[in-house]
């Protein structure tokens, strides 16, 4: 064994992209080194800024150790946005390569290209989509059911920090070593030790394992919260639809993440300990991995999409000034989708060589999901019918979702037919299809959610003009970027291809590239929107907290809400609880008495476990024994130590609750109500004149 192995494991200078670029200079390596450099510089810049502003203490006390579900939610969204930036840049790079590489090797080496699609896919699913929806759920769901926090606030913080640890590992792989080249699905034996002897798949394994454990815990937390923490009178069938979709997503998380955790750990055993689960030899079989992975993978797409369905339900009914059409239908459709999503995983490998019987059954099961999904789309359409529709930014995203999602649904049914899937499996047709589902069905939903709930979280509205500019970029960009891929797929162009031997692919590749650039412009516009809104925040303030004439309880409290959400837990008597309160004139009523409120104390356990988890993952990736032992011991130690802490709660005295609440009620009384036509004017201070 070499000197220093005990200290650094397999780490050496070659692990640094800068060294690689120095030794073998090429455009591809320079891009790699540039990306690594960017990560280092950005990290340093953040550190310097925090130090110069003396913000460490504030960050630690106010955010990192906080157990407030609202702050945890916001931190999740921040992670999602950082990772989205990276994954989008990678997407544009891939599009440039595939355009440049028509009848030409292009500017990226095949190796580099395969890292790009692997990290893009892994990041988008595990470190963009999952944190984004978990963040939105975290922020909104407890408010909507009239709770003060989730059931297990510390567990919530641990989930967040484990997710952050996984994301950090993927970012570190840009600077130290290389990520996997095996795609987001990491099929063995390609990702086995024989074919991928480097550290890439190990980064994938540990990043995904951290994330899957975090998501399992989040699922448990959300489900229990919905079962146990609802305000008095908030029966299940009075919950906003977003809470229903959250409940279903949580149940899916509980049951669907486990196969992934198991699959990635079995792959780890193959790689680290010479096991043969997924090799061809000694009784192993790679298709067992495919089964386990998609047993997670298919429910996963519904984990991703259901919360967005909830967002669209809120947004569409709010901005058309109507109650949701077909609430019960939507609930049953959601439940049906959740159950059926476990019965279709085999459609990801119709081409495995199983009998026609098996294929036909799974194909038909897949098409069945189309029924409840179609019902939902029409329920939303009927919600718009006979409304008074305001075309605000979140509404535009929702409308674009309706149209685009149906296109994706059509191609989904095409793919569900084994005979046709034989032709388009693994092709760009498939790539077009899943982006066609995930961009409208997830990303648009999350963007709509941020536009809709941002004023609640930060106390001021977002700039509407930039929101609309962004919307048009996303909408047009999407069609340009992905419609050509359907055609290319039918023409026989396969996914994960770094160069094309057919010169005539050029025009369609060019259109797709322009689309990707436009999509990126849409993302940049969102950042500009944020900047502009922060600059003009005084003009956009909505302290009363109900800028959109909302229907559910989150609008019944101030913006931003106090730590304990509601001075007095509201009493719910109907669906659309806050809308009904406004109608009956009991919104903003003065409570007769106040009580002390117990809230969870800050805890450093979350960040400690997150840091140790990242250390453990890094150590396992690089075979650094001592660090792995240390990381693992710290995690176990922190959990044990925490169990001895007696005083986990802090009492907020009734007097201070009263003072805060009365001040807000006075402000409400002093703020004029605005009708919907003035919704976007500075006069909208969050006191809505109810439409109906």
């Amino acid at each position, binding site marked *: 064994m070499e000197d220093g192995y005990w200290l650094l494991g397999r780490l050496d200078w070659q692990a640094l992209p800068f060294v690689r670029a120095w030794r073998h200079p090429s455009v591809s390596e320079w891009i790699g080194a540039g990306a690594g450099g960017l990560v280092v510089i950005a990290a340093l810049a953040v550190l310097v800024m925090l130090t110069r502003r003396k913000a460490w203490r504030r960050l630690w006390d106010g955010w990192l150790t906080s157990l407030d579900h609202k702050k945890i939610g916001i931190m999740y969204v921040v992670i999602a946005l950082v990772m989205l930036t990276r994954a989008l840049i990678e997407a544009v790079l891939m599009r440039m390569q595939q355009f440049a590489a028509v009848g030409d090797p292009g500017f990226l080496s095949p190796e580099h290209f395969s890292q790009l699609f692997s990290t893009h896919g892994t990041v988008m699913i595990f470190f963009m989509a999952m944190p984004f929806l978990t963040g939105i759920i975290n922020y909104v769901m407890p408010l909507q059911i009239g709770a003060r926090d989730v059931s297990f606030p510390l567990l919530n913080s641990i989930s967040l920090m484990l997710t952050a640890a996984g994301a950090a590992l993927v970012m570190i792989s840009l600077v130290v070593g290389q990520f996997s080249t095996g*795609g987001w699905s990491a099929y063995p*034996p390609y990702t086995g030790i024989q074919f991928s002897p480097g550290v890439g798949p190990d980064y994938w394994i540990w990043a995904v394992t951290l994330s899957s454990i975090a998501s399992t815990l989040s699922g448990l937390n959300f489900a229990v919260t919905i079962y146990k923490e609802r305000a008095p009178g908030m029966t299940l069938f009075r919950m906003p639809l977003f809470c229903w979709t959250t409940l279903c997503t949580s149940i899916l998380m509980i049951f669907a993440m486990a196969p992934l955790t198991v699959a990635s750990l079995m792959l780890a055993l193959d790689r680290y300990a010479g096991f043969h689960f997924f090799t061809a030899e000694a009784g192993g079989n790679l298709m067992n991995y495919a089964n386990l992975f998609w047993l997670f993978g298919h429910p996963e797409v519904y984990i991703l999409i259901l919360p967005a369905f909830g967002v669209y339900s809120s947004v569409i009914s709010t901005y058309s000034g109507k109650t949701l059409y077909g609430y019960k239908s939507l609930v049953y459709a959601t439940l049906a989708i959740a159950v059926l999503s476990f019965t279709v995983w085999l459609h990801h490998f119709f081409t495995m060589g199983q009998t026609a019987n098996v294929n036909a059954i799974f194909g038909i099961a897949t098409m069945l999901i189309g029924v409840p999904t179609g019902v939902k*789309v029409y329920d939303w*359409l009927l919600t718009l019918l006979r409304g008074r529709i305001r075309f605000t930014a979140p509404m535009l995203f929702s409308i674009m979702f309706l149209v685009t999602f149906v296109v994706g649904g*059509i191609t989904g049914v095409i793919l569900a*037919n084994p005979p046709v899937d034989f032709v388009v499996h*693994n092709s760009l047709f498939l790539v077009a299809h899943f982006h066609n589902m995930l961009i409208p069905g997830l990303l648009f939903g999350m963007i709509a959610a941020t536009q809709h709930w941002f004023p609640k979280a930060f106390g001021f509205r977002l700039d509407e003009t930039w929101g609309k500019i962004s919307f048009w970029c996303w909408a047009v960009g999407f069609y340009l970027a992905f419609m050509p891929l359907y055609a290319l797929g039918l023409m*026989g162009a396969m996914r994960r291809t770094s160069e094309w031997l057919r010169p005539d692919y050029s025009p369609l590749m060019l259109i797709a590239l322009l689309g990707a650039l436009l999509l990126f412009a849409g993302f940049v516009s969102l950042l500009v929107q944020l900047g502009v809104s922060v600059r003009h925040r005084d003009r956009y303030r909505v302290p009363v907290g109900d800028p959109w004439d909302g229907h559910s309880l989150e609008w019944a409290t101030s913006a931003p809400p106090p730590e304990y959400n509601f001075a007095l837990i509201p009493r719910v008597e109907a669906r659309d609880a806050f809308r009904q309160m406004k109608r009956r004139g009991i919104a903003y009523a003065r409570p007769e008495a106040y009580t002390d409120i117990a809230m969870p104390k800050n805890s450093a356990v979350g960040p400690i476990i997150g840091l140790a988890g990242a250390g453990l993952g890094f150590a396992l990736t690089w075979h650094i024994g001592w660090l792995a032992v240390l990381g693992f011991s710290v995690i176990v130690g922190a959990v044990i130590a925490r169990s001895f802490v007696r005083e986990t709660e802090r009492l907020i005295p009734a007097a201070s609750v009263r003072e805060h609440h009365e001040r807000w009620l006075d402000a409400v009384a002093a703020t004029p109500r605005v009708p919907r036509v003035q919704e976007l004017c500075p006069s909208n201070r969050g006191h809505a004149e109810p439409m109906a």
Partner: protein
Amino acid sequence: MRVSSRWTRNSRSLLAAVSGLLLSGCADYGLFAAAGPVAEAQRSHLLLIVGWMLVVSLPLFVALPFVLWRYRQRNRKADYRPDWEFSRLLETLIWGLPIVVVSVLGYEAWRQTYRLDPYRPIPADRPPVEIQVVGMDWKWLFIYPAAGVAAVNEVILPVGRPVRFRLTSATVLQSFMIPRLGGQMYAMPGMVSQLNLIATRAGEYRGLNTQFNGEGFARQKFIARAVSEARYRQLLAGMAATEAALDAATLARLRRASVLDSPLRFGSVDGDPFNAIVAQLRRGGGYAFTPAVGAR
């Protein structure tokens, strides 16, 4: 310098391609240019699905713009029913219509899945040709057990006679496909799968691996030549006259990761390499992969 010349080259081929595409209407591509009954059936099945799906989706595409326009906030003339939340008739329709369409499509899917089952021998008056296919990093080996010849990255098919491909992989998971003839099938290490196809038109068709397997993936292509039966016999006889033999040493060389510039032909085959590779991978330790060898 290099970059700019590439860009001019690209833009020139772009012009050529745009005009080509417009003129030919996507001719000679994948499903758009099916060259056998399997691909043709797959294409018509696809069109049928699109047709039925339009039945459920067109109402949305038509109604949505209308609803958005009519019920816009400024149109005070439109009725406004903020509490309207249910209609039995509409509810029956929005559940019923998708159920009907999915039933029809489900029935069709069932029928076609059986008819186009890749394992089902294609009915024809002559017995099928059997060709063994081994996916390697990053090439395809074709063995004609009856004729005792073999080739790499080139396969010859008799027009009008069904072909039964038996597939395996000497390395990782791969997927074998000739887009203009029809669907694909996985080639898996240690396992044997099947794909039945038939070419009804003579021509040269592109074949490829669709499942990513490393650096040389983009170049793992082969040519499928569909020729008349007489020509087929002639070509095989020509191959048999080739001196090169597919022996153990050649096989070992082929199994090392590499990309080939042109096809190889072998006039004789030692033993039964196809089944030997399957058995060897099952026994264990059979992978022959040297990751150090580059793609080009």
